[in-house]
């Protein structure tokens, strides 16, 4: 009996003695911040073991371990960088450990001179993705929403982005890092154009009004970066019934891939029959468009294929001071755009991005008796690598190629002519992001471009620096050189030119606290090598040169607050602009007609819980724009009256998946004047007659019903409106 117990007893004794035989070592020390403050609750442990503890309120720690030999001690704590020390276990006592703050934090200074972001999780974000589509004056156009930001100029009849004294061509648009060559739908010369792409495909928008990254070239004033959604949340079908047309969308999802398809048909004929505008339409604006995005996830990357097609046509007779019977104008435009990109992780700390786009645009215009047929085929290829050395130092470099092939056939009464050019540009860029601490960050970049057409090499340095002035405020400065080829209006006639150049100097101050943001930005922009010519318009017999120059300077202010008043979110933008240039056929340096001195916008949104409604308000003000009065001495010497417009919208949630949306642009019916057209020849008294350039319609009404069908029965299209 007793004997049988013995082995077990022995075993137990052996076990206990075995335990006690293992020697215990004490690991101890103190963990503090840079400034000596102790850190409470940091996790201190030997990597790969269970041995460890949390620091106490004095920052000290102490624990026992039975491990021996060389071990790795790790200290981790939220918003600090991990600390690790490899040493023999006997060396790990009475340690004094200082944790470095993690710069990958919202509290770190952000380089934001010049740029506005619409995203969720960013401190520099001034707009939320929803704003792009809930701003009253924007009518669901992402460009329209950006026009309520400072730095843009009110050119109501155009609809494109005019940034800081630059014309609309000086802003380039990129989708997923790849350039869009023809971003706007055509329109008549008295009604604003819209962006071709539906806003709900994008979940991130960065709008830079200057000083942008070396990755982006061929833009003198501004870039607009759109990022498509990586992964749709669920399968759904969307139906839109609008006063101007119909829309249909469907999203399908699989484990690794998804596809979204949208189609829209817009026809203004019924609207114009009800509310006739100033145009004499023969065939009101009609557009058919389709878009699709396919996404596929791989082990280490994401592939996106985006394609869009649209066809637009209209025909009308436009008023003209020199042609009492009007000018007959007919337009047919076909546009195809596709964009493929892959982004992924190449190896540890290496990221790769590759993308390509192809655009085919065809425009047939009939102007009085002339036929003009333009065809443009363009491509953009880009490859970029990014190396993450640490949270404090990252570097990227890449190469890209732009290809453009343009032809125009002109058939007039007496002339038949063809113009063509090929514009190929190769670019190389590199950029370093350096974060010294949460308070100081730099970005240094360099971009080189070679133009085949001009046989010219340009080099653009870019630099920006940001410094945190207090917990909630920061200063940034930026400098950069930017080059851009002239547009097809010029290149089709002349190719012996130079790239146009701007230099940007920007000083930005930003204060952010508690759902309020204030920004002020001072800038100066110098233009050189602008295209000049000696005729009224660029024509084949003009003498072209690259000798124009100019400047733009001013201040942009922005204030947004969704805290002070319950359920109201509002923002104010004000821009002051002083600009002159001597280019095109200007006899002297003058302020162009697309640039005005003062611009103000006020946007407010009010959520009424009881009515399940959001009411939106926006007010746009632009001071007068210049025009030349040939009856007086001078050039661009007079100004139109100020521009004013108040827009209202109302979105009503009938049920979680049904929304009724109503909007009115220029609700108070201000009569705005965009400029004047003077007759080419004086009348018998030597006086030049004029005609005011009025918008096609002073007001615009929109009614839409949006219905989403999905399994979960809660998703809706509110984010589209």
């Amino acid at each position: 009996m007793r004997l049988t117990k013995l082995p077990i007893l022995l075993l137990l004794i052996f076990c206990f003695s075995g335990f006690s035989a293992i020697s215990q070592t004490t690991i101890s020390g103190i963990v503090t911040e840079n400034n000596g403050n102790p850190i409470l609750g940091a996790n201190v442990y030997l990597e790969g073991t269970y041995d460890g503890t949390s620091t106490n309120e004095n920052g000290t720690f102490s624990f026992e371990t039975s491990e021996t030999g060389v071990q790795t001690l790790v200290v981790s704590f939220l918003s600090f960088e991990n600390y690790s020390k490899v040493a023999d276990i006997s060396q790990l006592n009475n340690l004094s450990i200082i944790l470095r703050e993690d710069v990958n934090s919202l509290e770190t200074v952000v380089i934001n001179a010049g740029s506005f972001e619409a995203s969720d999780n960013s401190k520099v974000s001034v707009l939320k993705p929803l704003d792009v589509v809930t701003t009253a004056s924007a009518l669901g156009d992402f460009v329209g929403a950006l026009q309520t930001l400072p730095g843009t100029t009110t050119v109501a009849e155009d609809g494109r982005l005019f940034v800081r004294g630059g014309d609309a061509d000086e802003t380039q648009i990129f989708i997923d890092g790849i350039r869009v060559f023809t971003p706007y739908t055509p329109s008549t010369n008295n009604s604003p154009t819209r962006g071709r792409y539906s806003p709900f495909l994008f979940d991130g928008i960065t709008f830079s009004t200057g000083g942008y990254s070396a990755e982006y070239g061929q833009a003198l004033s501004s870039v607009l970066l759109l990022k498509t959604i990586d992964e749709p949340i669920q399968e759904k079908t969307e139906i839109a019934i609008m006063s101007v047309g119909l829309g249909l969308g469907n999203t399908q999802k699989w484990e690794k891939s998804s596809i979204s398809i949208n189609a829209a048909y817009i026809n203004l004929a019924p609207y114009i029959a009800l509310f006739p505008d100033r145009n004499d339409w023969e065939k009101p604006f009609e557009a058919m468009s389709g878009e699709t995005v396919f996404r596929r996830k791989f082990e280490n990357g994401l592939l996106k294929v985006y394609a869009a097609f649209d066809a637009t046509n209209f025909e009308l007779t436009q008023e003209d001071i020199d042609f009492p019977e009007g000018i007959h104008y007919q337009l047919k435009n076909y546009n195809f755009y596709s964009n493929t990109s892959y982004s992924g992780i190449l190896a540890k700390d290496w990221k790769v991005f590759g993308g390509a786009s192809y655009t085919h645009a065809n425009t047939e215009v009939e102007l009085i008796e002339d036929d003009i047929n333009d065809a443009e085929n363009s491509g953009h290829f880009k490859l970029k690598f990014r190396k993450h050395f640490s949270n404090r130092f990252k570097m990227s470099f890449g190469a890209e190629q732009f290809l453009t092939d343009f032809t125009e056939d002109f058939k007039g009464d007496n002339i038949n002519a063809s113009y063509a050019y090929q514009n190929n540009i190769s670019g190389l860029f590199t950029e370093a992001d350096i974060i010294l601490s949460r308070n100081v960050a730099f970005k240094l970049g360099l971009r080189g471009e070679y133009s085949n057409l001009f046989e010219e090499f340009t080099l653009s340095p870019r630099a920006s620096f940001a410094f945190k002035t207090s917990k909630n405020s920061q200063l940034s400065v930026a400098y950069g050189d930017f080059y851009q080829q002239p547009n097809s209006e010029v290149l089709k006639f002349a190719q012996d030119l130079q790239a146009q150049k701007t230099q940007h100097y920007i000083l930005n101050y930003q204060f952010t606290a508690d759902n309020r943001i204030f920004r002020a930005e001072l800038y100066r922009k110098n233009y050189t090598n602008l295209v000049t010519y000696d005729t009224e318009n660029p024509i084949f017999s003009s003498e072209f040169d690259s000798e124009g120059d100019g400047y733009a300077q001013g201040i942009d202010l922005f204030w947004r607050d969704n805290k002070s008043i319950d359920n109201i979110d509002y923002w104010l933008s004000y821009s002051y602009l002083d600009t002159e240039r001597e280019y095109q056929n200007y006899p002297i340096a003058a302020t162009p007609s697309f640039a005005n001195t003062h611009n103000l916008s006020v946007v407010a949104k009010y959520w009424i819980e009881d009515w399940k409604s959001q009411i939106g308000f926006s007010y746009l003000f632009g001071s007068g724009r210049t025009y030349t009065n040939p009856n007086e001495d001078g050039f661009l010497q007079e100004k139109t009256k100020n521009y004013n417009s108040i827009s209202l919208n109302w979105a009503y949630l009938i049920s979680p998946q049904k929304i009724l949306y109503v909007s009115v642009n220029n609700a108070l019916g201000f009569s705005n004047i965009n400029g004047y057209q003077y007759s080419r020849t004086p009348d018998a008294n030597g006086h030049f007659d004029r005609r005011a350039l009025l918008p096609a319609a002073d007001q615009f009404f929109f009614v839409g019903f949006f219905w989403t069908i999905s399994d979960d029965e809660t998703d809706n299209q509110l984010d589209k409106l």
Partner: protein
Amino acid sequence: MKNLLFITIALISFSGISQTPYQKGMQKALDLWGENKANEAANLFERIAIAEPIEWLPPFYVSYITTIQSFGEKDAAKLKTQMDKAMVFLKEAKAISKENSELLILEALWHTVWVAYDGATYGMKYGGKVTMLYQEAVNLAPNNPRVLLNNAEWNIGSAKFFGTSIEPFCNDVKRAIELFKDFKPEGEFYPKGGLDRAKNILEENCK
């Protein structure tokens, strides 16, 4: 006979000694959490997660504790740092364990933190996602009271927002309470709480 008893006792006590470090560590971390030492518990779970890269429960608990702590956080910078950490550990757990209803609930809770922080911004963005995650969880584990309860709580919140009836979701909560009575978690250290919360929700919303 006496001998046999002794051996049995010895074996039991022996197996007590031979409890694996993993089991000891997990028990200690759960105990710390039970003593309201959430930070220390999370730290210990984090150490276990690093030492045992094939177990999904340690990263799950790190993420779970961090997510729960983030409800009600008003400081945007702090919230984002915590939520980023919670997401890192959630992803780790998801990489180890697929088709796991607890991880789906946690992912839904993670998104709900953002919706609760700023409904105007995140309600639209994440609302559909949360609903979908719960649906997936219900499909995987239709009789798990924890799935039912969390899903019902979210649905009650949405129904209140849209002004529709919460009646069907109250019934779900009642059903969850019934199911909690015989609830056996799938494995050791699996989360099992929720009965008290279910009773509270019923008390506060469904009268």
